[in-house]
């Protein structure tokens, strides 16, 4: 499959299905693994890097790890293609910006992705729509078992799975739940969530992970610790926290409706109007507009647009997606025009 074939659809995790999908966009789990007998990547020479890449690629393809697997060699991919894969959450920013022999294998539905030679030899990722940690864990556990039977993962019974960075050692697991929290953001109660979540050893991050800015009221909640608790225990901590945050967000929405209904509705309808009428929209602005409209749909104010469409627009209007769609490189002013016209087309077609 070619990357351009992907550009006008999106992965299944944006379908807006699953539990609590009005607030929970996606549930994601990743596992970090390394192969014994090879140094970690910062110490690997070209030959070792190449060997690890080819061993992992062949094992993944041979065992049909995901349905209709595609493999992209990132060492040969263009800058736009790499950014495109980051925007789709198929690879990390670090993986895109890395050097040398490395790649990504992913299934057709884009639920499963396997990053080869990222920070560790292998990063397995499974992402699903809505609050679906159990299914997500079952899928990734099974993939990890198949690969673990066919590869020798670096492991010690004291420290667990050995990783290049000691922050990941142990289970090698990071669970991230992406939440849409516009009302908590508007009422400034989001700070309280940050504090409460921090006490449980969890962290809040922006849309694209480590060190990224919060935009479009989208937040990722993930575990900080990976050692000393089993995978099930880590999952159950997050499993118990998320419903508290979503009900908090629902309360904040109710309060907004009760206390400032006119302002809230005005803001939502203005945002919808802008999306349908604007001729230029920056990537920053569109996140805010989509966020408002998404809340409008959740509150039952706007009825002629699907959550799936809005979820997809968060990704389809990102810079690399617009360039893929247009088939050429665009500067930021050109992108703003194309972005606005693309959104109008999607919303008018309803």
């Amino acid at each position, binding site marked *: 499959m070619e990357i351009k074939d992907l550009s006008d659809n999106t992965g299944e995790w944006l379908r807006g299905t699953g539990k609590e999908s009005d607030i929970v966009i996606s549930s994601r789990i990743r596992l970090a693994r390394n192969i014994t007998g090879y*140094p970690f990547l910062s110490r690997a020479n070209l030959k070792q890097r190449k060997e690890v890449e080819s061993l992992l690629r062949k094992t993944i393809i041979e065992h049909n790890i995901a349905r209709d697997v595609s493999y992209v060699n990132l060492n040969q991919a263009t800058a736009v293609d790499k950014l495109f894969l980051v925007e789709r959450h198929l690879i990390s920013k670090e993986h895109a910006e890395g050097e040398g022999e490395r790649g990504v294998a992913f299934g057709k539905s884009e639920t499963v992705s396997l990053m080869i030679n990222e920070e560790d030899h292998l990063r397995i990722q499974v992402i699903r729509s809505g609050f679906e940690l159990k299914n997500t864990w079952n899928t990734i556990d099974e993939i990890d078992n198949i690969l673990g039977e066919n590869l020798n993962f670096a492991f010690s019974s004291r420290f667990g*799975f050995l990783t290049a960075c*000691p922050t990941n050692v142990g289970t090698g697991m990071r669970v991230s739940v992406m939440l849409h929290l516009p009302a908590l953001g508007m009422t400034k109660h989001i700070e309280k969530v940050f504090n409460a979540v921090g006490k449980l050893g969890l962290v809040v991050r922006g849309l694209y992970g480590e060190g990224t800015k919060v935009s479009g009221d989208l937040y990722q909640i993930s575990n900080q610790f990976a050692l000393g608790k089993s995978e099930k225990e880590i999952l159950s901590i997050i499993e118990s926290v998320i419903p508290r945050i979503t009900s908090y967000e629902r309360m904040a929405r109710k309060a907004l409706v009760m206390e400032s209904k006119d302002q809230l509705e005005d803001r939502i309808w203005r945002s919808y109007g802008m999306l349908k009428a604007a001729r230029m929209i920056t990537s920053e602005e569109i996140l805010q507009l989509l966020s408002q409209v998404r809340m409008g749909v959740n509150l039952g104010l706007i009825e002629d647009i699907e959550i799936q469409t809005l979820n997809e627009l968060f990704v389809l209007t990102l810079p690399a997606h617009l360039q893929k769609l247009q088939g050429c490189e665009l*500067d930021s002013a050109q992108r703003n025009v194309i972005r606005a016209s693309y959104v109008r087309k999607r919303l008018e077609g309803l």
Partner: protein
Amino acid sequence: MKCESCNKKLATVHLTEIIENEKKERHFCEDCAQNVTNHFPKAPSPSDILTSLINQVSPEIREMSKATCPVCGLSYLEFRSQGRLGCPMDYIVFKKGLLPLIERMHGSSQHVGKVPANAGAEIVKKNELIQLRKELNEAVERENYEKAAELRDKIYELSGNVEDGD
């Protein structure tokens, strides 16, 4: 120049914003600048936390400063400055320096989770014992003695066949 936000006080803080390759100069007074920069809470990344933790555990450093891994050639000092290990062996070679770091980072230094699918029966059993002991402690803490007795029996049963200790 006046502050672009309140338009009253003198602008003393000058920010350069780069959004989509476009540079934008912004000028604020001290008070407004605080609001603007607080607007984007930035959680510390795991690597920031790691660096700050590495800097906190200095007593071990002196002892470890000469240690170098015979397998990958990484020195402990290089690990300190880069925050990344060079090979699985480093966890043994730098154990003394890593232990306090890992303890602070994860609140524990004993793995209790999954074991690789092809790990030997001994390792599987060993980790199962570790998990059971942890559950036993928790059961005792919660004064759930029935559960504790059940776990104790399981531990006896398992440990009869396996060499104990780490």
